[in-house]
C-alpha cells in the first residue's frame, strides 16, 4: 500500500520538465478565479507574483538544476504569516495597509523548496475563533455547503485546499485552528510539536501555544510540507535545537506493533455519528495490525477552561503592540493615550476585544493566582495525564471536533458555545504535543468528519504512519459542491 501523494507527483512532474510550473500555477489561479467569489477563502490572491515565481522555477528546471521537493506546487498562506512587501492583515482592520518588512521563516523555506505562494487566506481575526466568522472581511464558506462554516481559525486555508484552489496551505494552530477547520472541510491538518516549526514571522496570538503546520488533501502531502517547513530556526528562541522528525520517508511503514488508545474523554461530548466514525477508524487500525484499547486521560476535561484563561492572558500581552505608532491603523487624537485607545477601539473586532479584556482581567492584581496561575498548574496536570497514557499507548485516537460543520451564524452570539468547538483539540496545544486530523467519511448529514491522532512530543513520524492507515480505510466523501479545482 502506498498513500496518495498528489503534490509529490506534481512537484515530480515539474522537476522532470514534464509539466511547466507556469501552467500548474495558471490552472490553480483559474480555479480560484472561478470559485473564490462563492467560497471567500482568500484575502489576497498574488497572481502576478505567483506567475513570476513559477517562471523562475521553470528557468531553474530548464537550466538543469532542481528547484526542490515542492517545485511549482501552489501554496496558500494563512494571512497571519508575514510576507515581505505583501499585505498581511490577520483579517483585522488594525493592520490596515501593513506590508511586513520581512518574510516568515516558513515562507522562506517554502520558496527554497520551489513552492509558489499564490495568496493569503482568510481567518478569524488574529486567529481568535473557530469558524472564520470573526474576520473583519466577512466569513469563508465551507466548500461542502455554502450555508456552513469552514471551521477556524485557519478556515480560509482549509477551504482553499478543500475547494481544489491549492493542493497545500499553511495554517496556525493555537487551540485547534489547523485541525478543526481541516476536519470540517474534509482535508488533512497537522499541528506539529511545539518548537518544531519556526514561529518567526507568525503574528503572535498566544506564544506558548501557537504552532504553524500543514493543511493538504492527503497525509503524504501534509508530511511532505512538514518536512519542508520543520527544523531549527535561530530567529525563533523557542525553536527546538534538536533533530526534527522527517516524516514522508516513514509514511508507508504501517502500524503493526503499535498500541492505539481510543481516548474516552474526547468521545464523551461528540455527536453519535462522529463517535461512530472514530470507532470505525479504530477498527481499521486494528485490522492493520495495531493493538487497540480504551484509554483515559481524565485531566483533559479541564483543558478548555485552562485554555480560555491562558490563551487570552498571552493574547492580551501580545496584542498590546497594536497602538497606532509603528504600523497599521492610526486613529488620530489629541494625545498619545487617546490615540492608542481610539486606534484599538476602531481597529479590533468584538472577539479580539473580548479576549484582550478576559486576558487582562485574569492577569490583573487579585485574580492572577486564582485564574492564570491556577490554569498553568492544570496544564502541568494535563501533561502528566498524557505522559501516563503514553506509557501504555503509542498513539491516542479521538474525534477532531465534536460535530460536523455548523451553520453560519449558529454560534456567533454565544462565545462559550463557540469555544466548545475546540474541546477535542486544545489538550495537544497545552501539552505542546503533535496531532493530526484525517478526514474519515461523512457524518449523518453528509458533511465531513475528522478523526484525530495524538502522540507525545516529536512523534510526528508515528502519527503520519497511523494517519496513512486511517486515510486508506476512510469511507468515501462526496466532493465539495463549491470545488472548482482539480483535486487530483
Amino acid at each position, binding site marked *: 500500500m502506498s498513500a496518495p501523494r498528489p503534490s509529490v507527483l506534481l512537484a515530480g512532474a515539474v522537476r522532470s520538465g514534464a509539466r511547466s510550473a507556469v501552467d500548474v500555477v495558471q490552472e490553480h489561479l483559474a480555479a480560484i478565479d472561478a470559485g473564490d467569489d462563492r467560497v471567500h477563502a482568500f484575502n489576497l490572491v498574488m497572481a502576478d507574483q505567483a506567475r513570476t515565481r513559477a517562471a523562475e522555477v521553470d528557468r531553474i528546471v530548464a537550466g538543469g538544476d532542481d528547484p526542490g521537493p515542492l517545485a511549482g506546487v501552489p501554496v496558500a498562506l494563512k494571512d497571519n504569516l508575514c510576507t515581505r512587501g505583501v499585505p498581511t492583515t490577520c483579517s483585522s482592520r488594525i493592520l490596515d495597509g501593513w506590508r511586513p*518588512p520581512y518574510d516568515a521563516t516558513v515562507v522562506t523555506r517554502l520558496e527554497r523548496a520551489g513552492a509558489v505562494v499564490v495568496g493569503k487566506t482568510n481567518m478569524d481575526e488574529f486567529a481568535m475563533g473557530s469558524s472564520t466568522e470573526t474576520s473583519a472581511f466577512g466569513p469563508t464558506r465551507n466548500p461542502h455547503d455554502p450555508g456552513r462554516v469552514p471551521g477556524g481559525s485557519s478556515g480560509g486555508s482549509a477551504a482553499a485546499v478543500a475547494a481544489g484552489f491549492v493542493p497545500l496551505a499553511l495554517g496556525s494552530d493555537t487551540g485547534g485552528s489547523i485541525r478543526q477547520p481541516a476536519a470540517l472541510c474534509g482535508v488533512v491538518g497537522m499541528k506539529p*510539536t511545539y*518548537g518544531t516549526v519556526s514561529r518567526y514571522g507568525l503574528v503572535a496570538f498566544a506564544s*506558548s501555544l501557537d504552532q504553524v503546520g500543514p493543511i493538504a488533501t492527503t497525509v503524504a502531502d501534509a508530511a511532505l510540507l512538514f518536512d519542508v517547513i520543520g527544523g531549527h530556526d535561530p530567529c525563533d528562541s*523557542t*525553536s*527546538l535545537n534538536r533533530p526534527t522528525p522527517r516524516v514522508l520517508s516513514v509514511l508507508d511503514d504501517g502500524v503493526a506493533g503499535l498500541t492505539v488508545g481510543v481516548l474516552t474523554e474526547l468521545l464523551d461530548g461528540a455527536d453519535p455519528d462522529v463517535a461512530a466514525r472514530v470507532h470505525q477508524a479504530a477498527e481499521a487500525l486494528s485490522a492493520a495490525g495495531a493493538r487497540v484499547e480504551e484509554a483515559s486521560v481524565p485531566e483533559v476535561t*479541564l483543558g478548555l*477552561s*485552562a485554555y*480560555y*484563561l491562558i490563551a487570552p492572558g498571552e493574547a*492580551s500581552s501580545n496584542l*498590546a503592540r497594536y497602538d*497606532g*505608532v*509603528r*504600523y*497599521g491603523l*492610526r486613529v*488620530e487624537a*489629541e*494625545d*498619545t*493615550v487617546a*490615540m492608542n*485607545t*481610539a486606534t*484599538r*477601539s476602531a481597529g*479590533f473586532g468584538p472577539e479580539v*476585544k*473580548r479576549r*484582550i*479584556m*478576559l486576558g*487582562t*482581567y485574569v492577569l*490583573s492584581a487579585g*485574580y492572577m*493566582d*486564582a*485564574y492564570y*496561575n*491556577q*490554569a*498553568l*498548574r*492544570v496544564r*502541568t*496536570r494535563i*501533561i502528566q495525564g498524557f505522559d501516563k497514557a503514553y506509557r501504555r499507548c503509542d498513539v491516542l485516537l479521538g474525534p477532531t471536533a465534536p460535530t460536523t460543520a455548523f451553520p453560519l451564524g449558529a454560534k456567533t452570539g454565544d*462565545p*462559550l458555545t463557540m*469555544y466548545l468547538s475546540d474541546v477535542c483539540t486544545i489538550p495537544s496545544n*497545552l*501539552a*505542546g*504535543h503533535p496531532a493530526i486530523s484525517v478526514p474519515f467519511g461523512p457524518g449523518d448529514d453528509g458533511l465531513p468528519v475528522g478523526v484525530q491522532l495524538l502522540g507525545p*512530543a516529536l512523534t510526528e513520524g508515528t502519527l503520519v504512519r497511523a494517519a496513512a492507515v486511517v486515510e486508506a480505510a476512510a469511507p468515501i466523501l462526496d466532493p465539495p459542491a463549491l470545488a472548482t479545482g482539480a483535486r487530483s
Partner: protein
Amino acid sequence: MSTPDRITRADVAHVADLARLDLTEEELDLFTHQLAQVLDHAADVASLDLVGVEPTAHAMAVTNVLRPDELRPCLERDEVLGQAPSVEDHRFRVPRILGEAP
C-alpha cells in the same frame, strides 16, 4: 482554591481602560455578561486544589537561548519606518504625551 467574586460591570470598565479600549454602554453590558459566562465555566479550574503542583508556562522548556554577540544585518530602516502612520527625522512620531505642553 476558592473561586473569586463574579466579575462586575465596574471590573469590565476598569479592564477596558487598562487595555486601552473604549467601550460603549451596550458593549459594557454585553461583555460583562459574556466574560462572566466564560469565568463561570473556568470555576472548575479555579476551585481545584492544586497546592504543590508546579505551573507550566511553556510545554517544551527551552532556556537561556543565546548567540554570539556579533554584528549582522537587521531590517531595512526605511522599509520599517515606511510602515509607520507618522514619521519625523527617522523616528516614529506620536501626538503629545499626556500632561505635556503642546
